[in-house]
Protein backbone atom coordinates (compact mmCIF):
# COMPACT_ATOMS: atom_id res chain seq x y z
CA UNK A 1 0.00 0.00 0.00
CA UNK A 2 2.81 2.29 1.01
CA UNK A 3 4.70 1.52 -2.21
CA UNK A 4 1.54 2.21 -4.21
CA UNK A 5 1.09 5.60 -2.52
CA UNK A 6 4.73 6.48 -3.14
CA UNK A 7 4.54 5.58 -6.81
CA UNK A 8 1.25 7.49 -7.15
CA UNK A 9 2.85 10.54 -5.55
CA UNK A 10 5.89 10.20 -7.79
CA UNK A 11 3.65 9.96 -10.86
CA UNK A 12 1.77 13.11 -9.88
CA UNK A 13 5.02 15.01 -9.28
CA UNK A 14 6.43 13.78 -12.59
CA UNK A 15 3.25 14.72 -14.46
CA UNK A 16 3.32 18.13 -12.81
CA UNK A 17 6.94 18.66 -13.82
CA UNK A 18 6.25 17.55 -17.37
CA UNK A 19 3.23 19.81 -17.70
CA UNK A 20 5.31 22.61 -16.20
CA UNK A 21 7.98 22.09 -18.85
CA UNK A 22 5.38 21.95 -21.59
CA UNK A 23 3.74 25.22 -20.61
CA UNK A 24 6.88 27.31 -20.12
CA UNK A 25 7.17 29.60 -23.11
CA UNK A 26 10.68 30.21 -24.49
CA UNK A 27 12.25 33.57 -23.52
CA UNK A 28 12.12 34.76 -27.16
CA UNK A 29 8.35 34.28 -27.21
CA UNK A 30 7.83 35.91 -23.82
CA UNK A 31 9.89 38.91 -24.91
CA UNK A 32 8.07 39.22 -28.23
CA UNK A 33 4.67 39.11 -26.50
CA UNK A 34 5.74 41.84 -24.05
CA UNK A 35 7.25 43.96 -26.82
CA UNK A 36 4.10 43.69 -28.88
CA UNK A 37 1.95 45.05 -26.05
CA UNK A 38 4.39 47.92 -25.47
CA UNK A 39 4.77 48.77 -29.17
CA UNK A 40 1.02 48.65 -29.77
CA UNK A 41 0.44 51.20 -27.01
CA UNK A 42 3.31 53.40 -28.13
CA UNK A 43 2.75 53.37 -31.87
CA UNK A 44 -1.04 53.40 -32.00
CA UNK A 45 -2.14 54.68 -35.38
CA UNK A 46 1.19 56.26 -36.33
CA UNK A 47 3.84 55.18 -38.82
CA UNK A 48 5.08 51.67 -38.22
CA UNK A 49 1.55 50.29 -38.14
CA UNK A 50 2.27 48.06 -41.13
CA UNK A 51 5.32 46.58 -39.40
CA UNK A 52 3.29 46.17 -36.22
CA UNK A 53 0.67 44.20 -38.10
CA UNK A 54 3.39 42.17 -39.77
CA UNK A 55 4.92 41.43 -36.37
CA UNK A 56 1.51 40.43 -35.03
CA UNK A 57 1.09 37.92 -37.86
CA UNK A 58 4.47 36.33 -37.12
CA UNK A 59 3.85 36.40 -33.37
CA UNK A 60 0.52 34.62 -33.91
CA UNK A 61 2.41 31.89 -35.80
CA UNK A 62 4.88 31.60 -32.90
CA UNK A 63 2.01 31.31 -30.42
CA UNK A 64 0.28 28.70 -32.59
CA UNK A 65 3.47 26.69 -32.93
CA UNK A 66 4.01 26.85 -29.17
CA UNK A 67 0.42 25.79 -28.43
CA UNK A 68 0.60 22.86 -30.82
CA UNK A 69 4.18 21.65 -30.45
CA UNK A 70 5.67 23.41 -27.44
CA UNK A 71 9.10 25.04 -27.30
CA UNK A 72 10.40 24.18 -30.77
CA UNK A 73 13.10 25.78 -32.91
CA UNK A 74 10.39 26.99 -35.27
CA UNK A 75 8.56 28.66 -32.38
CA UNK A 76 11.76 30.43 -31.31
CA UNK A 77 12.53 31.46 -34.89
CA UNK A 78 9.06 32.95 -35.35
CA UNK A 79 9.40 34.79 -32.02
CA UNK A 80 12.85 36.10 -33.00
CA UNK A 81 11.53 37.45 -36.32
CA UNK A 82 8.50 38.97 -34.59
CA UNK A 83 10.79 40.72 -32.11
CA UNK A 84 12.87 42.19 -34.94
CA UNK A 85 9.75 43.39 -36.72
CA UNK A 86 8.49 45.01 -33.52
CA UNK A 87 11.77 46.85 -33.09
CA UNK A 88 11.54 47.94 -36.71
CA UNK A 89 8.00 49.23 -36.11
CA UNK A 90 9.30 51.35 -33.21
CA UNK A 91 12.22 52.60 -35.32
CA UNK A 92 9.90 53.59 -38.19
CA UNK A 93 7.56 55.42 -35.81
CA UNK A 94 10.48 57.43 -34.39
CA UNK A 95 11.87 58.10 -37.87
CA UNK A 96 8.50 59.39 -39.02
CA UNK A 97 8.40 61.87 -36.15
CA UNK A 98 11.83 63.14 -37.20
CA UNK A 99 10.67 63.41 -40.80
CA UNK A 100 7.75 65.54 -39.66
CA UNK A 101 10.22 67.91 -37.99
CA UNK A 102 12.25 68.13 -41.21
CA UNK A 103 9.09 68.70 -43.23
CA UNK A 104 8.13 71.53 -40.89
CA UNK A 105 11.51 73.18 -41.47
CA UNK A 106 11.23 72.75 -45.24
CA UNK A 107 7.72 74.16 -45.19
CA UNK A 108 8.94 77.18 -43.26
CA UNK A 109 11.57 77.68 -45.97
CA UNK A 110 14.42 77.17 -43.53
CA UNK A 111 15.95 74.33 -45.44
CA UNK A 112 15.56 72.44 -48.66
CA UNK A 113 16.42 68.93 -49.68
CA UNK A 114 20.05 68.09 -50.35
CA UNK A 115 21.76 71.19 -49.00
CA UNK A 116 25.46 71.12 -49.81
CA UNK A 117 27.85 69.92 -47.16
CA UNK A 118 25.28 67.72 -45.44
CA UNK A 119 25.95 64.16 -46.36
CA UNK A 120 23.00 62.71 -44.42
CA UNK A 121 20.46 65.16 -45.78
CA UNK A 122 20.33 63.90 -49.33
CA UNK A 123 20.15 60.30 -48.15
CA UNK A 124 17.18 61.02 -45.93
CA UNK A 125 15.33 62.74 -48.71
CA UNK A 126 16.00 59.93 -51.15
CA UNK A 127 13.39 57.92 -49.35
CA UNK A 128 9.97 58.34 -51.00
CA UNK A 129 8.31 58.60 -47.63
CA UNK A 130 10.47 61.60 -46.85
CA UNK A 131 9.26 63.19 -50.05
CA UNK A 132 5.71 62.68 -48.89
CA UNK A 133 6.64 64.36 -45.63
CA UNK A 134 7.98 67.38 -47.50
CA UNK A 135 4.77 67.91 -49.38
CA UNK A 136 2.67 67.46 -46.21
Amino acid at each position, binding site marked *: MKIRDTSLFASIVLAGLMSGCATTAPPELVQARTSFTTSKQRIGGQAGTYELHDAWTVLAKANKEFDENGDTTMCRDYAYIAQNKLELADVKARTELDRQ*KIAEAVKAGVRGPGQPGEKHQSRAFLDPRAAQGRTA
Partner: protein
Amino acid sequence: MMKELMMSFALLGLAGCTAVQIPSDRLEHSQASIRGAEEVGANGVPAARLHLQLAKDQTDTAKRWQRVARSGRCWFLARAESDAELALGLAREVSVHQDALKAAEDLKSVRDRGTN
Protein backbone atom coordinates in the same frame (compact mmCIF):
# COMPACT_ATOMS: atom_id res chain seq x y z
CA MET B 1 8.60 -4.75 -60.30
CA MET B 2 12.25 -3.83 -60.73
CA LYS B 3 11.29 -1.08 -63.16
CA GLU B 4 8.83 0.42 -60.68
CA LEU B 5 11.47 0.29 -57.97
CA MET B 6 13.98 2.07 -60.19
CA MET B 7 11.39 4.72 -61.05
CA SER B 8 10.71 5.29 -57.36
CA PHE B 9 14.42 5.72 -56.68
CA ALA B 10 14.70 8.14 -59.61
CA LEU B 11 11.80 10.20 -58.30
CA LEU B 12 13.28 10.24 -54.82
CA GLY B 13 16.61 11.35 -56.24
CA LEU B 14 14.91 14.12 -58.19
CA ALA B 15 13.08 15.26 -55.08
CA GLY B 16 16.39 15.25 -53.20
CA CYS B 17 18.01 17.43 -55.88
CA THR B 18 15.26 20.02 -55.69
CA ALA B 19 15.49 20.03 -51.92
CA VAL B 20 19.20 20.94 -51.85
CA GLN B 21 18.86 24.06 -54.02
CA ILE B 22 18.89 27.33 -52.14
CA PRO B 23 15.70 29.29 -52.83
CA SER B 24 17.41 31.96 -54.94
CA ASP B 25 14.75 34.65 -54.46
CA ARG B 26 15.01 34.36 -50.69
CA LEU B 27 18.79 34.47 -50.82
CA GLU B 28 18.77 37.47 -53.16
CA HIS B 29 16.29 39.30 -50.98
CA SER B 30 18.41 38.65 -47.93
CA GLN B 31 21.61 39.80 -49.68
CA ALA B 32 19.85 42.88 -51.10
CA SER B 33 18.69 43.86 -47.62
CA ILE B 34 22.25 43.46 -46.32
CA ARG B 35 23.64 45.62 -49.16
CA GLY B 36 20.93 48.24 -48.55
CA ALA B 37 21.80 48.41 -44.87
CA GLU B 38 25.50 48.80 -45.68
CA GLU B 39 24.79 51.57 -48.17
CA VAL B 40 22.78 53.54 -45.64
CA GLY B 41 25.71 53.32 -43.23
CA ALA B 42 24.67 50.53 -40.88
CA ASN B 43 28.32 49.80 -40.11
CA GLY B 44 28.62 53.21 -38.47
CA VAL B 45 25.69 52.66 -36.10
CA PRO B 46 26.45 50.18 -33.27
CA ALA B 47 22.93 48.72 -32.98
CA ALA B 48 22.57 48.48 -36.75
CA ARG B 49 26.04 46.95 -37.09
CA LEU B 50 25.09 44.18 -34.67
CA HIS B 51 21.97 43.24 -36.65
CA LEU B 52 23.88 43.55 -39.91
CA GLN B 53 26.49 41.12 -38.64
CA LEU B 54 23.76 38.73 -37.48
CA ALA B 55 22.17 38.95 -40.93
CA LYS B 56 25.50 38.18 -42.63
CA ASP B 57 26.25 35.27 -40.30
CA GLN B 58 22.82 33.74 -40.80
CA THR B 59 22.99 34.13 -44.57
CA ASP B 60 26.40 32.42 -44.54
CA THR B 61 25.00 29.63 -42.39
CA ALA B 62 22.11 29.19 -44.82
CA LYS B 63 24.59 28.90 -47.70
CA ARG B 64 26.72 26.38 -45.79
CA TRP B 65 23.65 24.29 -45.06
CA GLN B 66 23.03 23.60 -48.71
CA ARG B 67 23.05 19.87 -48.17
CA VAL B 68 20.84 19.87 -45.11
CA ALA B 69 17.08 20.21 -44.86
CA ARG B 70 15.65 22.97 -47.02
CA SER B 71 13.35 24.25 -44.29
CA GLY B 72 16.33 24.87 -42.00
CA ARG B 73 18.02 27.06 -44.60
CA CYS B 74 14.82 29.00 -45.19
CA TRP B 75 14.62 29.76 -41.50
CA PHE B 76 18.16 31.10 -41.43
CA LEU B 77 17.33 33.30 -44.41
CA ALA B 78 14.10 34.52 -42.80
CA ARG B 79 15.99 35.47 -39.67
CA ALA B 80 18.72 37.11 -41.76
CA GLU B 81 16.15 39.17 -43.68
CA SER B 82 14.53 40.43 -40.49
CA ASP B 83 17.94 41.37 -39.07
CA ALA B 84 19.01 43.13 -42.26
CA GLU B 85 15.75 45.09 -42.46
CA LEU B 86 16.13 46.15 -38.84
CA ALA B 87 19.75 47.20 -39.48
CA LEU B 88 18.56 49.26 -42.46
CA GLY B 89 15.83 50.90 -40.36
CA LEU B 90 18.21 51.68 -37.49
CA ALA B 91 20.83 53.18 -39.79
CA ARG B 92 18.23 55.29 -41.59
CA GLU B 93 16.81 56.44 -38.26
CA VAL B 94 20.17 57.84 -37.18
CA SER B 95 20.60 59.60 -40.51
CA VAL B 96 17.11 61.16 -40.42
CA HIS B 97 17.45 62.03 -36.73
CA GLN B 98 20.60 64.05 -37.42
CA ASP B 99 18.72 65.91 -40.14
CA ALA B 100 15.79 66.52 -37.83
CA LEU B 101 18.02 67.96 -35.11
CA LYS B 102 19.66 70.28 -37.63
CA ALA B 103 16.28 71.27 -39.05
CA ALA B 104 14.91 72.06 -35.59
CA GLU B 105 18.03 74.10 -34.84
CA ASP B 106 17.72 76.05 -38.12
CA LEU B 107 14.03 76.64 -37.57
CA LYS B 108 14.66 77.90 -34.05
CA SER B 109 17.37 80.31 -35.14
CA VAL B 110 15.16 81.70 -37.93
CA ARG B 111 12.27 82.17 -35.51
CA ASP B 112 14.58 83.82 -32.98
CA ARG B 113 15.81 86.23 -35.66
CA GLY B 114 12.21 86.94 -36.62
CA THR B 115 11.25 87.92 -33.10
CA ASN B 116 14.29 90.19 -32.67
